[in-house]
């Protein structure tokens, strides 16, 4: 049984099609990443799944049952960490977590322990009596997460939780998400940061313009494209003829020179680096640092859509 099962979902904003026959199937226990540039339909998809938005066509099932705005039994098992910090500015950290937890857990004793756990989980023990406006951006994000996960949901949606967050808080948030997953929660994680998605997600869907372009594990997605290796060699100068020679190598898909370095995208091969360096050595070009990297999700996105994820 899929924990999230979306079939043929269509959502239009007047003339704009935000979700175009969108399908999504998530298994229990996954950390599922929705990756795509801003405006690709990630948040719209989540909002439709959570019944915050109407949709024009399609079917949404959660935990194997049809989701409607009044399916409180299903809602009780869901947590949401929205993109924007959604807390009461007038309440303290503890009061905020307690309020949102109380929407799911009525038992006061049980709630107290859940709130304590959530505070400890996000590391806000020293700030329980602070009002949100006194917290830094990173701490606010942590509070936002605590409010969404305090009731220990089975399915948690994280909608771009690391936007505008410092690296330290970002790492803490990502570690927390993995910990929640280890404790049994299924996580749906949306982001336009490919590194984050690569780091924590067991399966990834790449989205653009309301379409699901590709779905699979990190390795599966990278295997879908021709690029097997990206080679970067620092050189002082490179003429067009030599660049043409590099491009003509059997495994090279493309090569560019930006004035400081040669960058070559290659198919999978065992001698790609030595082939490229051999051409440069033959021509007597002095080389600086050399990098050889496997393809990134950006390469996947680039190859599928013809544009970079960060364009």
């Amino acid at each position, binding site marked *: 049984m899929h924990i999230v099962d979306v079939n043929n979902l269509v959502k239009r*904003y007047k003339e704009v099609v935000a979700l175009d026959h969108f399908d999504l199937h998530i298994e229990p226990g996954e950390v599922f990443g929705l990756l795509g540039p801003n405006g690709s339909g990630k948040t719209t998809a989540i*909002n*439709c799944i*959570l*019944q*915050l*938005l*109407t*949709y*024009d066509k399609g079917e949404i099932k959660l935990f194997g049952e*049809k*989701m*409607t*705005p*009044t399916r*409180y*039994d299903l*809602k*009780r098992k*869901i947590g*949401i960490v*929205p993109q*924007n*910090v*959604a*807390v*009461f*500015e*007038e*309440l*303290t950290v503890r*009061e905020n977590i307690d*309020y*949102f937890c*109380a*929407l*799911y857990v009525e038992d006061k004793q049980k709630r107290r322990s859940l709130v304590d756990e959530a505070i400890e989980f996000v590391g806000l023990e020293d700030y329980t009596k602070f009002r949100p406006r006194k917290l830094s951006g990173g701490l606010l994000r942590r509070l936002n997460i605590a*409010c*969404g996960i305090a009731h220990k949901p089975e399915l948690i949606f994280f909608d771009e939780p690391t936007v505008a967050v410092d690296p330290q808080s970002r790492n803490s948030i990502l570690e927390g998400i993995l910990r929640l997953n280890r404790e049994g929660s299924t996580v749906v994680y949306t982001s336009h940061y490919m590194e984050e998605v690569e780091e924590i997600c067991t399966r990834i869907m790449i989205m653009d313009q309301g379409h699901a372009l590709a779905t699979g594990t990190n390795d599966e997605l990278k295997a879908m494209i021709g690029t097997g290796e990206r080679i970067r060699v620092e050189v002082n100068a490179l003429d067009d003829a030599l660049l043409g020679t590099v491009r003509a190598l059997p495994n090279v898909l493309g090569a560019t020179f930006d004035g400081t370095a040669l960058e070559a995208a290659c198919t999978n091969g065992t001698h790609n680096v030595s082939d490229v360096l051999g051409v440069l050595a033959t021509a007597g070009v002095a080389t600086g640092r050399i990098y050889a990297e496997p393809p990134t999700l950006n390469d996947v996105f680039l190859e599928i859509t013809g544009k970079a994820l960060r364009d």
Partner: protein
Amino acid sequence: MQAFKAALRIVLNHPVYLLVYVGFLSCMGVFISASINSGVADDGSYTATKVPIAVVDRDQSELSESLTAYLGETAELVDVADDSFAMQDAVATGEVRYLLVIPQGYGEDYLEAARTGAVEPTLESTYSFGTMAGTLVDEQVNQYLGLVRATAALEPDASVPSVLARADQAAAESADVETVQTPNGAKPADRFAFYLQWGSYTMTAAIVVCVGLLMSAFNRTDVHRRNLIAPVSTLRLGMQKAAACLLVTLAVWAITCGIGLAAFGSSLGGVPLPAVALVLATALVFSLVPLSIGFFLGQIGASEMVANAVGNIAGMVISFLGGAWISLDLLAPEVQTLSRFIPTSWYTEAIGQAIHLTEITPETVLPILGNIGIIALFAIALFAVGLAVGRLNLRSAEAGGNAGAKAAA
């Protein structure tokens, strides 16, 4: 009850608003109401105020002494040294409100001028700038000298003592002062009524700010969406918020009326208990008007600052235009017409009628109940507008309306 408790916490986490809008403004109302009828005792007696003045008599003539004695009858004479600094200090520090300097030879020159028709010599006088009392004393001086001049001109051969005696006799004539308690005049209980009429501002400001703050906190888009995702129906959440708003309104009403009763309760002895209850009921129904305004502000997502601004400005405007601070009779006819479209005018009228009830009969009570009904209609109309705006917001994609989603599902 989670939303109910959180809503109350939101209000209680802003104790300054309650202190300033309910406590401070109510106390201000007590002081203003207590000053009604100042200078006229409730027993109807009248006592003229004696203003401190000083006369520096360099003449020491019969006329100057007689003038000084005349002024001493209606003012309090204060000794001030015949020294430039001392005189300036006395006036500047408010020790005296009026200072008169009679120059040497003034009496003789004045009588001579009066008898011959020549121009009279002048006196030096200084008034305190902070009050009109000095001007009035100066008028008394001119009046007395005018009587002396008239007597001396009419009887050129009369001796100085004779002229002054006749002038004293004429100056002693004065109109009797009697205070009259008119049937509709201010009664002790009117202080309580005025306090509650002033309370229209107190209650409006306090309730609009507190309810607006509470509602806007819940209606903030992101918080609202998070609540929609939770396994609690919007109806249940709405009921809890409404209960919190109502409790805040009741608390403001109770504190406002409680302070009024504590301050002026003893003056309500002559007012029948049902009439007092009617007055309090009028205030209670009126408190629903700012509740509706606060609800509306919350629905449009007004910020804390906007809620404060609207609470204060709306409170002042509707209190003033409703005749809570100044009797509507003193305002232009256009303003009086406009006031009928403001709930406060019906409120002040109902309070005024109820506090003067001597007997409770359908004929006396029905007009008051009519006014209360009109106030309630204002509250309902404003609430309906707020509700309509709220429904529109709820259905918008930005607010995450799931009413539409329900239809699609």
